[in-house]
């Protein structure tokens, strides 16, 4: 028995994030490290807590081990609660058989019993793929004011990028008149952020309908929301104004990390009134040696730096030896760059080792054919041998033999 909760959140964290390649070989996308000490899922979880939502179901499916381990009992986000708290919801065996989550709507459908236990008025649907700071309570208030059945958070995106998003045409009163899914010639630049507030009774009914429909792909964006719209339910768009980034590709993940070093970018993680919580590593402060040169970078605790670091983000316990250079790069926890090695325009995943004099990545201005240029990625635990060269845009999942 649980007391009634006005709103609970369901966080879709089952995505593979296949465009992140080897970075998500062994972990789900929401567990991908970001910003020196965080993982992507810290953002929606912290937003929930900061918005006074203390009951969160996290739906996992793809490679959940590390994610489950990371979330633990939720204490890092103050989500270890007697009433509510964080719950990991994986697909489970039922009397009619076993099913994976077939789509985003199906994932919620399979957990109707979980939601019913809290008897909420509203359900907030989130995804674990985005970096943003948002006060969900304002959106829920908007939903109430408009007496809406479904409210979708929207963001104005640059027109030239609009065709990559699910777009909405919005009336003056904020109601949604039309949806367009990744159109070639967009008529709107108002993109859906994948953040939804539903009145639970309505959503529950549509989930049952959607499941009964054999032609449905059981997806919120493709099936359930259009069905609600066609039936004339009250659908509203809630305008969000702030930093929001889908870190679905290597380039966008790299960019989103380096955005933290750009004072022009509207994402302030130092704001103590809206903290982003995470599991903090147990290590000592980082050490910068006499031989080091560190500029314009973000450096987490436990790092040992004796080389040159410029315009980069270093996670906990990274080692940059004397004479090594790291620039325009992301170094994930425990990775090592040995003396004489150069890492540039690259993402080096957890515990990877770049041996002496190896070169990872290339500056775009040094690349003749710009089509061949891209951010180089070294996978978790990979060893790049002495003097080896990792080309730009390469994605290395196996050890690379040394050239010396």
């Amino acid at each position, binding site marked *: 028995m649980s007391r009634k909760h006005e709103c609970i959140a369901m966080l879709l964290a089952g995505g593979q994030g296949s465009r992140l390649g080897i970075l998500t070989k062994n972990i789900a996308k929401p567990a991908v490290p970001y*910003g*020196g*000490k965080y993982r992507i899922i810290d953002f929606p979880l912290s937003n929930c807590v900061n918005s006074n939502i203390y009951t969160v179901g996290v739906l996992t499916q793809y490679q959940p081990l590390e994610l489950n381990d990371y979330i633990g009992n939720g*204490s890092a986000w103050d989500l270890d609660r007697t009433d509510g708290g964080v719950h990991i919801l994986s697909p489970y065996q039922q009397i009619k058989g076993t099913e994976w989550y077939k789509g985003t709507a199906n994932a919620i459908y399979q957990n109707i019993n979980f939601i019913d236990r809290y008897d909420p008025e509203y359900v907030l649907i989130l995804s674990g793929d985005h970096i943003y700071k948002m006060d969900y309570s304002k959106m829920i208030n908007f939903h109430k004011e408009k007496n809406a059945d479904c409210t979708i958070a929207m963001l104005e995106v640059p027109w030239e990028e609009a065709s990559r998003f699910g777009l909405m045409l919005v009336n003056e009163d904020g109601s949604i008149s039309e949806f367009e899914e990744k159109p070639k010639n967009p008529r709107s630049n108002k993109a859906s952020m994948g953040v939804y507030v539903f009145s639970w009774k309505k959503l529950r009914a549509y989930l049952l309908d959607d499941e009964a429909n054999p032609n449905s792909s059981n997806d919120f964006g493709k099936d359930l929301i259009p069905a609600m719209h066609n039936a004339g339910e009250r659908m509203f768009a809630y305008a969000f104004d702030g930093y929001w980034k889908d870190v679905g590709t290597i380039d966008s993940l790299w960019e989103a990390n380096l955005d*933290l*070093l750009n004072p022009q970018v509207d994402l302030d*993680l*130092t704001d103590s009134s809206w*903290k*982003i*919580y*995470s599991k*903090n590593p*147990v*290590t*000592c*402060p*980082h*050490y*910068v*040696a*006499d031989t*080091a*040169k*560190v*500029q*314009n*970078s*973000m*450096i*987490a*605790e436990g790092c*040992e730096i004796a080389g040159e670091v410029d315009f980069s*983000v*270093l*996670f906990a316990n990274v080692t940059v030896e004397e004479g090594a250079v790291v620039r325009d790069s992301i170094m994930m926890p425990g990775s090592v760059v040995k003396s004489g090695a150069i890492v540039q325009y690259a993402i080096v995943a957890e515990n990877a080792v770049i041996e002496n004099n190896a070169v990872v990545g290339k500056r775009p201005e040094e690349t003749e054919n710009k089509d061949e240029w891209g951010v180089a990625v070294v996978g978790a635990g990979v060893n790049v041998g002495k003097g080896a060269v990792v080309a730009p845009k390469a994605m290395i999942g196996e050890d690379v033999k040394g050239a010396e």
Partner: protein
Amino acid sequence: MRANNVLGLIFSNTYDHYLNELTAMRSMGSVPYGGRYRLIDFQLSAMVNSGIGKVGIITKSNYQSLMDHVGNGRAWDLSRKNGGLFILPPFNTSTASGIYSGRIEAISNAMDFVSHSDEEYILMTDCNTLYNFDFAEMFRQHEKTGADITIAYINGVAPKIVELAELETDDGNRITGISRSRSGVESNYAINVYLMRKALLERLINEAMSLGYHSFTMDILLKNIDKLKMYGFKAPGYVRMLDDMQSYFEANMSLLDSDNRKALCLSQPVYTKVKDDVPAIYGLNSEVKNSLIADGCVIEGQVINSVLFRGVHIGKGTVIKDSVLMQNTYVGDNVSLNCVLADKDVVIKPGKVLSGDKTFPIHIGKGIVI
């Protein structure tokens, strides 16, 4: 001896007056150290790492910051149903005034807690000593030698602390003589880490109380040297006792040495209360050499041979040299600091110049604006 059969007892206020300036508003245990820690972290972590599951912290005065820091003990995995963390504040009884005056009285005040614990052994430690060794080694030696009391010690130049026990031992580490340590003289001196059966401690304290004794070293240890089997345990690794502001300053600086850092902070995990700060941010023209920097720092200027705690801000054109700046120190633009020890929340306005000496750093009290 199973470690979960050992009760931990930490004295959080002992020798407060040796670090007067830092303990004016806090207890020894909550004195910040090493960029992100409080002194008590080393005691709690070493106990937990050795397998101890129940720890009492004896407090005396100014323990608000300590309680805020340790909370329910979760950071040390001491928030438990069985055992866990207990804060033991002083209280008034018909026989004692509450505020105790020595170690014997302090233990006596905590005797209810000690007696009601199921553990057979007790390990007692202070907070002004920095180390990170495995107490389990000490437990093993205690069992092997069949000692009544095992006392951890190190060899070195004895600190200024009065009534520290100087030990004479035979080849088998059996203690054959105890005397008052001589400050500044190289010797084997005890670091106030004691292991014994709980029942023995209860008996010794009761006796001492009834006879009006005060000094644990002189009245209990020394007077029982022939009656009890006492053994010394030579504490391995990094061990430093803080006995004045200079030693505190130097202990912070000692972490700039990689071997010291590994020995004290990384040989076993040292847990502390987390602050969820952002990683440190280095600006366009920052220059940092031989320094220890915690999360939450923003560095726009120069930092050389210094320790910056969490959330320190260094302005543009500013030069920080040989200094220790505690949590949330805000240093404006074009400031020059040399050999400065700034307590928490200090603000140094733009253009100021402060210079101390390595042997006598300038201390700036908590929250002072210059």
